[in-house]
């Protein structure tokens, strides 16, 4: 870091985010703090401008009557002005509460009630409409401030106000009371709650996780030191602001180190924007990396024969030695030469197309990443690593150190973090990044932190011989079959999901005599495959029911069975029967959380008939499902689902098959 000494001198004072912001505005006023693509051009805001804007918003909110400790709801895509609102809220000693922007109005009510929201800053007309829809049910909601005035001309509801008008009001307020905001910032303490992030609700109702300035600053400091982040980094902020990872990477770390965050133009342009920005530090969940790779592979299949050959040849080279070169391990001179040539002809241009030419550190988390996928990115020289953490720990527990990358581990405990295992294999963590409490839920807080001050993650895992943590599954999901063998549903599901044709899997088996599975095919990948084979299909439901597709999926299932058979602990949980669901599991129907994790119990309840049919070994089962469209209307899908058997392997046979 260029100004480490400077920071050290200020260190005592830089213990809240507003102080950090004012510090950057003072020491690097001209450095770009944020960029946003608007009207086709990247617009830059430097730290001084950001600080001014935050001041204006903060003073405007104060003028409206926002008090210390009030919660401010923030709803929308990653827009600079929404990030400023987070900072403004913190300046006033308030608590920003980000909501997932694609949630429907009815889902937002819960958080508005739970957090007793009086003020909301929202992105646009779409979000305003949601707020107005539920305004009657949320009587506390007094002010809704919108960023984008488009389409808002005919709205005359008294609780609405444009962010421009608010800022203007704030500037006047700031001019009249010049000391007000500085005094408010001075009142802030490092142990104040800096943000409230709601858990995704995989297990019951969402809970508001209260994190202090100290916690997020500790997590950001640890991560920045670990990966040697400086104020020169560029990061693309495109993941939901309500998600802890975005708050850590796009807010806390940016505020700490002073690097630049870049907001894409819209959800559809992320790929183009990524290429234009060329971030040096990047985070994406596995499915983004997977989509990128799928797109590359589809395009390569359409390329000319010479290009395909060259691609294949150099990808073989990369697979052989690319990851070792990245890790600094010894590699023969011949391979090095080949890799150098490959970098010139294939990897370099490929990384450029993917927008990854400048990446120094890339992280993935949130779900397990497929070994092939992980290896692919590392082999072309992208320093992709895994991390482990949850909302309650500021997404900061384990990180993979450079040069010590293992495919199936999440790395070593991060700086300041202590990790230990409970007797049942549950992972327990302790450190400065732990949550202060769940909002208004002392019962849940007491339940999740044990007497020694360890947070109980609920994940089951173990340390390998090098001290790297491996995650198997949710501790409570790990069950047993009737014959006593272990059943770790996520473990099996992840293995299946690594096949490009399979998008989502739910397995069942706890307390049963065998393991069965629901499968969602990947419409894009299977659709392409069907097109190449000249198969006709009308949509997801039709494609999913075709027998050729069943054959394709059975192949994948049997490969996983063979793989499971190798491990004596897992060989009992091979998949005996499966079916392909007639619809994609969808967050709008409550089957997935907003972070796209399967809500296992809900799915099990909703499709109980199918589960019974699977275990009884029926050949087909009729099912009728109510689906919710994006506009809130409901429809029905009826289908006769086929149930198929998959080959299982005895442990020895498994070895042969593998």
């Amino acid at each position: 870091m260029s100004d480490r000494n400077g920071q050290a001198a200020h260190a005592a004072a830089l213990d809240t985010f507003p102080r950090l912001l004012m510090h950057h505005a003072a020491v690097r006023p001209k450095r770009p703090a944020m960029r946003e693509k608007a009207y086709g051009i990247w617009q830059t805001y430097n730290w001084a401008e950001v600080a001014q804007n935050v001041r204006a918003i903060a003073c405007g909110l104060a003028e409206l009557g926002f008090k210390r400790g009030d919660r401010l709801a923030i709803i929308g895509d990653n827009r600079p002005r929404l990030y400023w609102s987070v900072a403004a809220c913190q300046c006033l000693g308030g608590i920003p509460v980000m909501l997932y922007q694609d949630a429907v109005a009815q889902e937002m009510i819960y958080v508005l009630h739970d957090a007793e929201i009086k003020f909301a800053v929202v992105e646009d007309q779409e979000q305003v409409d949601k707020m107005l829809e539920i305004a009657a049910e949320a009587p506390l909601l007094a002010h809704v401030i919108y960023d984008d005035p488009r389409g808002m001309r005919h709205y005359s509801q008294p609780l609405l106000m444009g962010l421009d008008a608010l800022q203007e009001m704030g500037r006047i307020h700031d001019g009249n009371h010049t000391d007000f905001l500085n005094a408010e910032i001075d009142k802030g303490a490092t142990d104040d709650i800096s943000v409230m992030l709601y858990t995704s609700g995989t297990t019951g109702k969402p809970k508001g996780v209260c994190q202090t300035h100290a916690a997020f600053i500790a997590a950001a400091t640890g991560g920045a030191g670990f990966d040697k982040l400086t104020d020169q980094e560029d990061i693309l902020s495109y993941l939901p602001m309500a998600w802890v990872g975005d708050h850590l990477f796009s807010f806390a770390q940016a505020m700490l180190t002073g690097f630049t965050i870049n907001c894409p133009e819209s959800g559809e342009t992320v790929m183009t924007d990524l290429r234009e920005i060329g971030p040096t530090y990047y985070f994406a969940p596995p499915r983004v990396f997977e989509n990128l790779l799928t797109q590359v592979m589809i395009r390569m299949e359409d390329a000319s024969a010479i290009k395909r050959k060259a691609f294949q040849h150099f990808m073989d080279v990369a697979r052989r030695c690319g990851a070792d070169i990245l890790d600094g391990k010894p590699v023969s001179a011949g391979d090095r030469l080949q890799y150098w040539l490959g970098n010139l002809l294939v990897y370099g241009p490929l990384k450029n197309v993917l927008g990854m030419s400048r990446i120094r550190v890339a992280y993935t988390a949130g779900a397990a990443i497929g070994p092939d996928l992980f290896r692919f990115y590392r082999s072309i020289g992208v320093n992709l690593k895994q991390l482990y953490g949850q909302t309650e720990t500021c997404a900061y527990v384990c990180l993979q150190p450079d040069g010590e990358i293992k495919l199936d581990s999440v790395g070593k405990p991060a700086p300041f973090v202590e990790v230990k295992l409970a007797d049942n294999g549950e992972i327990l963590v302790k450190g400065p990044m732990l949550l202060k409490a769940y909002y208004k839920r002392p019962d849940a807080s007491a339940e999740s932190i044990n007497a020694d001050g360890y947070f109980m993650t609920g994940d089951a895992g173990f340390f390998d011989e090098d001290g790297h943590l491996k995650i198997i599954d949710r501790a409570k999901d790990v069950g047993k079959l009737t014959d006593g063998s272990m059943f770790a549903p996520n473990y099996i599901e992840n293995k299946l999901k690594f096949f490009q044709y399979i998008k989502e899997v739910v397995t069942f088996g706890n307390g049963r005599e065998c393991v069965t599975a629901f499968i969602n095919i990947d419409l894009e990948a299977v659709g392409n495959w069907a097109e190449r084979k000249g198969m006709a299909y009308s949509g997801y439901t039709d494609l999913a029911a075709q027998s050729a597709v069943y054959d394709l999926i059975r192949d994948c299932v049997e490969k996983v069975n063979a793989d499971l058979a190798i491990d004596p602990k897992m060989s009992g949980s091979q998949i005996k029967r499966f079916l392909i669901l007639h619809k994609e599991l969808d967050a709008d129907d409550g089957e997935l959380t907003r972070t796209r994790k399967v809500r296992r119990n809900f799915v099990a309840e909703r499709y109980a008939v199918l589960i019974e049919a699977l275990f009884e070994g029926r050949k087909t089962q009729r099912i009728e499902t109510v689906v919710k469209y994006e506009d809130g209307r409901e429809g029905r899908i009826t289908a006769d689902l086929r149930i198929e058997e998959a080959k299982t392997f005895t442990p020895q046979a498994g070895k042969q098959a593998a």
Partner: protein
Amino acid sequence: MMMNDMASLGDTQTQAPDRHIGDVILDLQGISLSFGGVKALTNISFDVREHEIRSIIGPNGAGKSSMLNVINGVYRPQEGEITFHGKVRKDMDPHRAATQGIARTFQNIALFKGMSVLDNIMTGRNLKMKCNLFEHALYWGRAQKEEIEHRKKVEEVIDFLEIQSIRKTPVGRLPYGLQKRVELGRALAAEPTLLLLDEPMAGMNVEEKQDMCRFILDVNDQFGTTIVLIEHDMGVVMDISDRVVVLDYGKKIGDGVPDEVKNNPEVIAAYLGTSH
């Protein structure tokens, strides 16, 4: 900052006030048009008021497109009088119509398939460009400044129509519904006061139609643009139009607000296809 300048450009207060139907801006009286012995339009009179959405409907061959072509000067009617913005029109051609603020889209998409979305919309700025060919070719002096200004306007249109992600895609590669949207974009780039849309929703699926409806209403609402629209989808027409004129075999058989037109027996007959 540039961003702020642009924000103020798009600022609602600085543009036309709330949409209210104003005075008549286009008045057609006794229009007759024939091609040799074929009478395309016979003695048709109707008017268009400022800021309204005026639909022209009718069965195939009723003369709807001919009517649009008369309005923007492609055809010159043998009889009748056209008053536009209070001036009686002597003779007219599409170029002059465009300079007077009339823009249109076509029934069959008429875009440059090999050019990007951005460039296609840029062609809509053609009439607003002041520099000569030579200056543009060299991209020198005021041409540069001019180009930047036009690009800014085009970007506003792209933002308005939410087509940022296809900005640089060649139009020929886009699905039909998006091509229609790009064509609307090109017409909007000319900043028209009167926008003629010839079957903007033909051949679209329900979702594309909904999008297009929303954009047409937004154009009308935000820019105050007067819109004359030909459309076959009755649901759409009745939903978004302020007034509707019905043609059949070149004659006007109905005119009024959607509810009136819907209950007009002649219109029902024409649409249900009773024998003539």
